[in-house]
């Protein structure tokens, strides 16, 4: 690999690379996202390699980034036709090679079955989950090997960079991004172009640039899969940003919990340096830029920009008051521009296709696409990328495939700990920054947790409160003590010890914490409570006044019982009960001793005859 | 007295911490009356950003050329205030701090009126001193980016390697003809029972391959001179001498095992030390059925120390023996078990499972060893046991090397009561202290096991590394200077200087005069009293300043504070502990007026006379405990001078009880308060000094003659 010195050389390289990638050459792509790996996709890939040798087949193998449809991993797609086999096991591999690859036959038994219609689907593009999405940032994930810069370049990667460096002034770049109305994908939605301009215009020679990849929000993992699946696009975006802002040094602040993303990013940086796309005099433009990785050591608060900077500087992640804003005084007191992974990844696209093309997508206020990780009580768990303005209904039912086991949809929690719950009345609202905020939720990181009838909203609120309580840095009083107070109250309620005054107390606390906390974490911490109170007040009241949990979740308000008529006396529950609360003769109905029962739900999980009821 | 003197006096309320005990407003008023005080101002919080700005405005605005700040101890804020002055364009040394917080407000909070009087005296003294202070720049010293490591044991090798790996050139000096030190005699190591020899082998190889390290075997450090950061070291090996420069020195001379001759029948065939057992184990010939180990052997008397090392070794050896010779009956007698590590209990349990017996004996009842067996009183079972033995192992502590004192003198660093190299008590260090860049690690420091030695070695290396990294240091401290016009070249200062900072240089052929090497001078001031013609002055702490200070601090006419007592305190011990007493708000009689000096040895007998002539009823001189002097001999000299002075005093008709030289521990404020109180009591008993009227002829004459100096 030799250094690429001019845009021309890059173009030449791209042409030669894409020639090598013969489009008709069969290629088996195995998803290598963390999800699929956990399902054993690495073993599947090995099997393919072994089989490839055994059958002396000249098929290309490629482990790609996350395809998004994590529910059905390990995913295998056979190009060029895009034949789609979900949930592939090692033993399926031989026939995939011999049949599908060799002869091009489709193996019926491996095809994906649409749970709603029940019909089999052959091609990836036709799977409803993908069909109804508008994939912008995630599109490449399925096509390239994230550990190979040539894959990325072959598909036009770093083209935008060379365009910027050869044809555009920094101001023009900023204008383009501004015209595209790109807004910070970190959640708050601050106009990216404006942020860049502020940093560029801030006095001072040295300036820094930071990519915020501290995706701390539980239930959101799109940043991770972008960095795992297409790290070079993030880098390209950052280099362009650096050029526009006038920064020559940058950091990617990424969670330690994402080892694969860290690895791929590290490889990508090394490769980019190797090709001269990072470092001194990039593409002969005289512009220097480099990227360093900094690991987040497990602190949600470090997603907050001032805390994040403190952490990069090697101090505890305590936020500081703003102003001064990072664009004025950031890392080591120098102007610093911080954007989220997705924001950076958007940049090359905007440059490549132009702002006019970009603004066609989305709503008035919010352009482009939004990525949600749709998780929880949903059929098709996975990453969903849709144009801004798509409705919740489309995401949850058309793409997400609805709620499993025919259960009733209850609510969707958007934006993680800083977001809120939205009830079914609003399923048809087109979602963008404004509409979500109006509904008491928040785009946040784009975590979308689907709740069905079995989810207790009080418990959910309590869960999030536990989370922020643990993650609060403890610097300011409202956040440190206030969240604790709210948590205590919620716990009391879920224990059935709630009092009439509790709801008002919660509202009062929430208000105060929201308005007087030091940083974003505290200011948004009450949202889960406020939103659940707004849409599900009656559930709170049920807990407080009737001492009952409608969703049958809160332990102290429920009892497990054996339905005598259904119980076959298989003694499975009795054998596994941790407290030995279940007794009974073999083949005779069992009984649960409520005095001993700790309501762990183990028995219900184990019973093959649904003979355990909760009330 | 200089003209065009514009002294600015700033009194800090310390947010009430001072103001609530002293009427700072009144002090400001009183101060305004003082001559040379151009501006007297009260500050709510001098260390706050806002007040610092006010201070700077005042300096610029009123064109002040000397600043006196009355507030807290210099230890916390002097640096801050000095830099503030510099920013305002005033040399940092034109700032004088008067400690009215720890030195007055807090320690006399019970007696407001007298505290006020004292505070005022302190202010006057500060002003008097300031009016004579001269600006001067610190001395820059370039640091030689290389290090000397003394001792080629584990500690030395580890430290050398760590530095070398970071690109520091290291000279490693070992007096033996081979590396390895104590470790060479060890068999296995705790806790992993790894072979000592192997570990040693790879470490030595690693060291030999390291280009940045030069190993000098069979060599001794025979001379260490030169300034901090630029030491000139002379090493002798086999008669040949070699000299070189180093920036920092790491002392890793290790220790030796005490041979307990005359104890527990040591010397007889059946009684050996732990170390001797090691070699037995190494050879693998251990013939014994009944083994007894005695820990803390012979350490019942006061001056010894329980050593974690003995316990660890004993435990390790017990485990080893039991593993290799399960038959052996092994009993371990101990007084205390000092254990460290992740979970030492595990090892103790292991030992017990293997059948090692543990018996604890009390300090009052040491085990008795006869030819037949060991008699011991078991604390737990409360009964005597008699253990037959055919091998008795004594755990004896590590003791310092014989030649340790020689080295200590060469390096001019003190030894502790056991002959180990202690850390400098940085905790109570005086302000403006610069480190010596001499670091101690390993058993030279205290008996430490391998794990700890390695740790210490690396930690010492780290400190050395960060010192060397600075490239150059600026020593702000006071500096001695010889007035060539007065110097007669008698050479007494050359003799007395503990740091060889003064040399005789020929002057126009015939006589030669003393010259001070500023980079070597630590500003202790020992040479000043020594000079018969008072040709030496101390920058930043000159004799005129001191005399003026003494006069002012005692000046409160017919002060209510009779008897009036002057304290001339060494800042390392007496002054440090006085401040500590302040921080603790301990109360002592306000009669005492304290002046802080670099060292007790700085005091000239005439300072004491001068004090009496100015109305002192008693003089208390505070210094470091013998052997603890930070300038090697300062405290001894003070002692000598006071002794000489006594005759002079007697001649002038003073009771010699009025002068006392007292050693102080820097970290024991209650003892300090006690001493002060009983000295005050003693003086009170003597009553106010009845001498001729102050304004009497000879008195005045005396004053003039002294003042002239």
């Amino acid at each position: 690999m030799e250094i690429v010195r001019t845009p021309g050389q890059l173009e030449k390289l791209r042409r030669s690379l894409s020639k090598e990638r013969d489009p008709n050459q069969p290629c088996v792509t195995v998803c290598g996202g963390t999800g699929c790996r956990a399902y054993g996709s690495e073993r599947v890939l090995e099997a393919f390699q072994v089989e490839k040798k055994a059958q002396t087949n000249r098929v290309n193998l490629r482990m790609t980034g996350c395809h998004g449809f994590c529910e059905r991993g390990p995913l295998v797609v056979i190009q060029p036709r895009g034949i789609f086999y979900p949930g592939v096991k090692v033993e399926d591999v031989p026939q995939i090679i011999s049949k599908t690859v060799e002869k091009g036959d489709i193996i019926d038994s491996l095809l994906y079955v649409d749970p709603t219609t029940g019909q089999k689907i052959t091609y990836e593009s036709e799977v409803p989950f993908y069909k109804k999405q508008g994939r912008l940032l995630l599109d490449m994930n399925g096509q390239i090997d994230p550990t190979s810069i040539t894959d990325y370049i072959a598909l036009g990667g770093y083209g935008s960079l060379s365009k910027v460096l050869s044809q555009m002034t920094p101001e023009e770049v900023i204008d383009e991004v501004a015209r595209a109305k790109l807004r910070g994908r970190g959640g708050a939605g601050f106009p990216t172009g404006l942020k860049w301009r502020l940093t560029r215009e801030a006095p001072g020679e040295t300036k820094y640039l930071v990519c915020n990849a501290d995706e701390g929000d539980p239930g959101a993992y799109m940043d991770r899969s972008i960095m795992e699946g297409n790290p070079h696009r993030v880098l390209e975006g950052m280099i362009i940003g650096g050029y526009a802002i006038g920064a020559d040094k940058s950091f990617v602040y990424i969670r330690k919990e994402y080892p694969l993303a860290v690895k791929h990013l590290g490889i990508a940086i090394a490769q980019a340096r190797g090709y001269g796309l990072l470092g001194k005099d990039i593409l002969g433009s005289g512009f220097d830029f480099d990227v360093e990785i900094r690991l987040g050591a497990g602190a949600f608060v470090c997603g907050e920009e001032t805390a994040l900077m403190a952490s990069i500087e090697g101090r505890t992640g305590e936020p500081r008051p703003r102003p001064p804003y990072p664009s004025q005084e950031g890392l080591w007191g120098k102007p610093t521009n911080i954007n989220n992974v997705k924001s950076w990844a958007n940049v090359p696209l905007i440059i490549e296709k132009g702002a006019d093309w970009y603004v066609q997508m989305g709503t008035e206020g919010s352009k482009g696409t939004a990525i949600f990780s749709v998780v929880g009580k949903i059929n098709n768990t996975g990453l969903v990328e849709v144009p801004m303005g798509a409705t919740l209904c489309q995401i949850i039912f058309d793409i997400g495939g609805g709620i499993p086991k025919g259960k009733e949809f209850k609510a969707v929690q958007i934006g993680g700990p800083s977001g809120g719950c939205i009830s079914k009345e609003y399923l048809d609202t087109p979602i963008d920054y404004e509409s979500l905020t109006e509904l008491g939720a928040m785009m946040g990181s784009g975590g979308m947790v689907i709740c069905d009838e079995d989810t207790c909203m009080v418990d959910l609120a309590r869960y999030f409160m536990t989370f922020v309580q643990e993650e609060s840095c403890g610097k300011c009083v409202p956040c440190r003590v206030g969240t604790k107070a709210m948590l205590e109250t919620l716990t009391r309620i879920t224990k059935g010890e709630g009092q009439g005054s509790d709801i008002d107390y919660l509202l009062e606390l929430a208000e105060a914490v929201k308005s007087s906390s030091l940083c974003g974490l505290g200011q948004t911490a009450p949202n889960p409570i406020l939103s659940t109170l707004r849409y599900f007040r009656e559930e709170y009241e049920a807990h407080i006044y009737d001492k009952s949990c409608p969703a049958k979740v809160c332990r102290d308000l429920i009892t497990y019982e054996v339905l005598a008529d259904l119980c076959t006396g298989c003694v499975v529950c009795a054998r596994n009960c941790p407290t030995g609360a279940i007794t009974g003769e073999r083949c005779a109905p069992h009984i649960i001793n409520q005095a001993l029962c700790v309501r762990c739900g183990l028995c219900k999980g184990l019973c093959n005859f649904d003979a355990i009821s909760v009330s | 007295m200089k003209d065009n003197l514009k002294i600015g006096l700033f009194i800090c309320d310390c947010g009430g911490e001072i103001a609530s005990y002293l009427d700072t407003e009144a002090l400001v008023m009183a101060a305004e009356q003082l001559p040379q005080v151009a501006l007297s101002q009260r500050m709510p919080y001098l260390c706050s950003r806002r007040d610092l700005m006010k201070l700077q405005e005042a300096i610029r605005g009123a064109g002040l050329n000397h600043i006196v700040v009355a507030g807290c101890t210099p230890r916390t804020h002097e640096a801050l205030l000095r830099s503030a002055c510099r920013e305002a364009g005033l040399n940092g040394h034109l700032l004088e701090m008067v400690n009215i917080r720890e030195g007055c407000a807090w320690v006399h909070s019970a007696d407001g009126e007298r505290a006020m009087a004292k505070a005022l005296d302190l202010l006057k003294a500060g002003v008097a001193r300031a009016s004579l202070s001269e600006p001067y720049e610190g001395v820059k010293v370039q640091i030689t980016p290389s290090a000397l490591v003394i001792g080629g044991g584990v500690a030395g090798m580890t430290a050398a390697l760590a530095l070398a790996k970071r690109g520091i050139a290291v000279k490693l000096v070992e007096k033996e003809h081979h590396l390895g030190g104590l470790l060479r005699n060890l068999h296995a190591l705790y806790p992993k029972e790894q072979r000592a020899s192997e570990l040693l082998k790879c470490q030595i190889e690693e060291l030999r391959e390291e280009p940045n390290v030069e190993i000098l075997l069979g060599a001794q450090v025979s001379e260490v001179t030169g300034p901090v950061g630029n030491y000139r070291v002379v090493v002798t090996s086999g008669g040949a001498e070699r000299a070189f420069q180093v920036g920092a020195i790491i002392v890793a001379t290790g220790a030796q095992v005490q041979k307990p001759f005359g104890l527990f029948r040591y010397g007889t065939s059946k009684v050996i030390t732990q170390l001797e057992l090691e070699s037995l184990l190494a050879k693998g010939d251990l013939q014994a059925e009944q083994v007894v180990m005695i820990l803390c052997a012979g350490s019942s008397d006061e001056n010894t120390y329980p050593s974690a090392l003995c316990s660890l070794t004993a435990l390790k050896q017990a485990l080893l023996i039991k593993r290799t010779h399960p038959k052996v009956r092994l009993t371990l007698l101990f007084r205390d078990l000092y254990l460290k590590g992740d979970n030492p209990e595990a090892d103790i349990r292991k030992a017990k499972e293997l059948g090692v017996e543990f018996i604890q004996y009390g300090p009052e009842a040491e085990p008795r060893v006869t030819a037949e067996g060991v008699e011991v009183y078991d604390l737990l079972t409360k009964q005597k046991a008699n253990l037959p033995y055919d091998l008795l192992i004594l755990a004896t502590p590590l003791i310092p090397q014989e030649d340790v004192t020689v080295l200590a003198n060469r390096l001019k660093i003190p030894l502790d009561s056991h002959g180990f190299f202690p850390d400098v008590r940085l905790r109570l260090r005086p302000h403006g202290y610069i480190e010596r860049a001499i670091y101690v690690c390993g058993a030279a420091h205290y008996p430490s096991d391998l794990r700890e030695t390695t740790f210490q070695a690396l930690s010492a290396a780290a400190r050395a590394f960060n010192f060397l990294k600075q490239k150059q240091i600026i020593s702000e401290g006071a500096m001695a200077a010889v007035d060539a016009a007065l110097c007669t070249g008698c050479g007494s200062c050359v003799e007395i200087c503990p740091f060889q900072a003064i040399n005789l240089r020929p002057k126009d052929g015939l006589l030669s005069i003393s010259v001070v090497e500023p980079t070597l001078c630590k500003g202790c001031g020992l040479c000043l009293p020594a000079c018969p013609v008072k040709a030496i002055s101390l920058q930043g702490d000159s004799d005129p300043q001191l005399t003026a200070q003494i006069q002012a601090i005692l000046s409160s006419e017919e002060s209510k504070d009779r008897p009036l007592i002057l304290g001339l305190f060494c800042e390392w011990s007496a002054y440090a502990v006085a401040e500590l007493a302040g921080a603790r708000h301990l109360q002592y009689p306000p009669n005492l007026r304290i002046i802080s000096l670099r060292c007790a040895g700085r005091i000239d007998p005439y300072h004491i006379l001068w004090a009496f002539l100015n109305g002192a009823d008693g003089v208390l001189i505070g210094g470091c405990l013998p052997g603890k002097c930070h300038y090697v001999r300062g405290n001894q000299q003070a002692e000598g001078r006071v002794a000489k002075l006594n005759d002079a005093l007697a001649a002038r008709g003073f009771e010699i009880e009025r002068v006392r030289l007292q050693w102080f521990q820097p970290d024991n404020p209650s003892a300090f308060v006690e001493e002060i109180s009983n000295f005050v009591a003693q003086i009170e008993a003597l009553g106010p000094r009845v001498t001729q009227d102050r304004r009497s002829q000879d008195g005045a004459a005396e004053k003039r003659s002294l003042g002239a100096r």
Partner: protein
Amino acid sequence: MIHLTIDNQEIEVEEGTTILEAAQEKGIFIPTLCYHEALEPYAACRLCAVELEGKRGSRLVASCAYPCEEGAVIHTDSEMVRRSRRITVELLMASSEHLPLVKALAAQLGVAEPRFRLPPDDCILCGLCVRACRDIVGIAAISLLNRGMEKRIGPPFEIASNACIECGTCVLICPTGALKLEDITKEEKAIHRWGSPFDRRPCHICGDHDLEPHLSLGPHSILGEQTSGEE
């Protein structure tokens, strides 16, 4: 010069002045806990929050850290401000009701009883001692430990600090008297709250240097009747 309105008073201040400083100039009282003249603003206690009018409605800002802006309109005693202060103080009371300082504030703002309680603690985590030790004295012997509810103040490993020079600055800056300078053992001295929990035998040689206190076992634990405190 910058012009702004605080409680309907037109005032003029130098650029860079904080709202709190400006208010104090004008003798307008704003309660504070973590603010200190000698230190950089920390904005942690939120007691000094004031209402700042803005385009998108009013919001609360920490007056100790927020710089005066041209034309800003500020209320230091509006209902919004009082409500937030009341809650803040109530939250402080949860663990520090017994402190005179907190009592006084509560009385001032008319808060009777906290509606939720925590184990009593003298320390309100204003961080003054830590910042004073680091920024004024330049020693940094103590620091903030852990986070959230577990947050504490202490020296490394929470045993007697070797770095502490016992200047007592932390003690005198502490607004609640949570810190006391006290002897721990004859050998070691350290600040009371931060004392080593271990039973340290006076050991000339080992005692002073090693941060890891020696675990000295009594005969019982050796005979296995009880295991020592480590686990």
